[in-house]
């Protein structure tokens, strides 16, 4: 637990300084709210924020799961087909240069204003680190292990299932953890492009009325969301590949 104290102490100090500066300089809340104003917004808008959070959480979780599923399938296909890898991998890299903010409105036109375009935006944002890390993990399999498996009657499928895939899991989880931090941002982009609920929608609504504390409150909740997803993936990692930590510590 002691490793949590330094960042928490720093965070608390930062919040303290922020509060003091805003008060001392008499900055109005609509320009830059003090932490206390954000906190009171969190409390007074709790119901509204809770409803919005539920909507966004759904988008984040399902979009993320979609990204993991599609990412793993695509990575495995790329792993098995060198031709596909040569053809598709550069295009995947290229696709990452298209800003998601630009894609989101197009997806809203295509898929309407329901949850679907949000899932797709979240999935697009999360997909890339998962694919790249999975492909790298699968390809970095120790050749000596593969030779050993071949003399032990290992078929191509057996080598994949018993050596390549388990060996790639640490890399897959690094990708999944990076993706977890992107998911909440993806959901907000999706909501900004057209929605009637969710944290992104609340942020948009609060902007014209200059309810900046509420916008900050939304950002806070979004951060917490991303942190939770990250923590959950890390926890899953610990359960699924307990051996990896052991090897790293040895």
């Amino acid at each position: 637990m002691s490793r949590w104290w330094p960042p928490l102490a720093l965070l608390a100090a930062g919040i303290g300084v922020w509060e003091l500066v805003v008060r001392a300089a008499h900055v109005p809340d609509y320009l830059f709210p003090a932490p206390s104003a954000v906190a009171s917004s969190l409390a007074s808008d709790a119901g509204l924020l809770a409803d919005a959070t539920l909507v966004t959480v759904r988008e984040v979780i399902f979009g993320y799961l979609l990204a993991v599923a599609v990412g793993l399938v695509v990575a495995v296909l790329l792993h098995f087909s060198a031709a596909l890898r040569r053809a598709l991998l550069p295009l995947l890299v290229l696709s990452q240069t298209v800003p998601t903010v630009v894609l989101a409105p197009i997806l809203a036109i295509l898929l309407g204003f329901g949850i679907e375009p949000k899932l797709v935006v979240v999935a697009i944002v999360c997909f890339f680190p998962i694919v790249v890390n999975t492909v790298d993990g699968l390809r970095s399999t120790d050749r000596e292990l593969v030779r050993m498996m071949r003399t032990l009657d290992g078929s191509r499928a057996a080598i994949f299932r018993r050596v390549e895939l388990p060996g790639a899991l640490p890399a897959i989880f690094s990708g999944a953890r990076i993706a977890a931090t992107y998911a909440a941002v993806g959901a907000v982009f999706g909501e900004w492009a057209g929605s009637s609920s969710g944290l992104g929608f609340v942020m948009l609504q609060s902007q014209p009325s200059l309810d900046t504390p509420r916008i900050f409150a939304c950002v806070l909740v979004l951060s917490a969301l991303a942190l939770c997803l990250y923590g959950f993936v890390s926890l899953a990692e610990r359960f699924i590949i307990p051996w990896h930590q052991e090897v790293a510590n040895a």
Partner: protein
Amino acid sequence: MAGTADPATEPNTPIAMCAGGISLVGVTRVLGGRIVLAGLDLHVSPGGRVGIVGRSGVGKSTLLSLVAGLDEPDAGRVTVAGETSAAGRLARCALMPQRDCLLPWRSALDNACLALENRGVPRSEARGRAAVLFERFGLAEAEGLRPVRLSGGMRQRVAFVRTLLAGKEVLLLDEPFGALDAITRAELQEWLAAALEGEPRTVLLVTHDVEEALLVCDTVVVLRGGRVAAEFDARIACEGTRREIVTSPAFVELRERALEAIG
């Protein structure tokens, strides 16, 4: 697999096999523009145990890859138990690589089960069969441990059991103890010699340690210049304790002659 007792149908020890012989005729292999093996001839009779010694880079591991069916010669023919195709040789040989190559995510027992699982034996049954060998080879307490928790010597033993459980007629051991300290190494050489006594298989042991080859094998072949430079009958080394053998005049003389041949 005619005439072969498949351990998949005979769960009880020993997992003995009718051994097949190995024959290499005029085998040449060029790797990266360098002639590694140059018209090499080598014959191992069924059940024979041949140690291959030589300086590093002399082509010992290349030779094993060829026999194992993991590689094809540029010229010449490699036959294992009558099989000349790479796939046929692969089916007859089990290779114990230089490093133990244990999978870090599997327990020691499950690592040993790999070959059985690859052949479709259910895991519980494979575990039962591996457990018998773990008992026999003094590995019982290592069963549930992952490789990272095992000592170097233990890991090599597990790797050896994994190779045995493949149930192949031919065992190819590539520097199995190369990474171990001298004491563990000496211990495992004795252990291996004893383990092989109960397993009538054809064995090809590659090592840079002449003493190891003489202790474990009944014939020692010196590789030099891409060919077999000398061949020694090592059976005199078969009686007495290790220390008695290693210090006996006959053994010392044999070792000197082999070292001279290595050059």
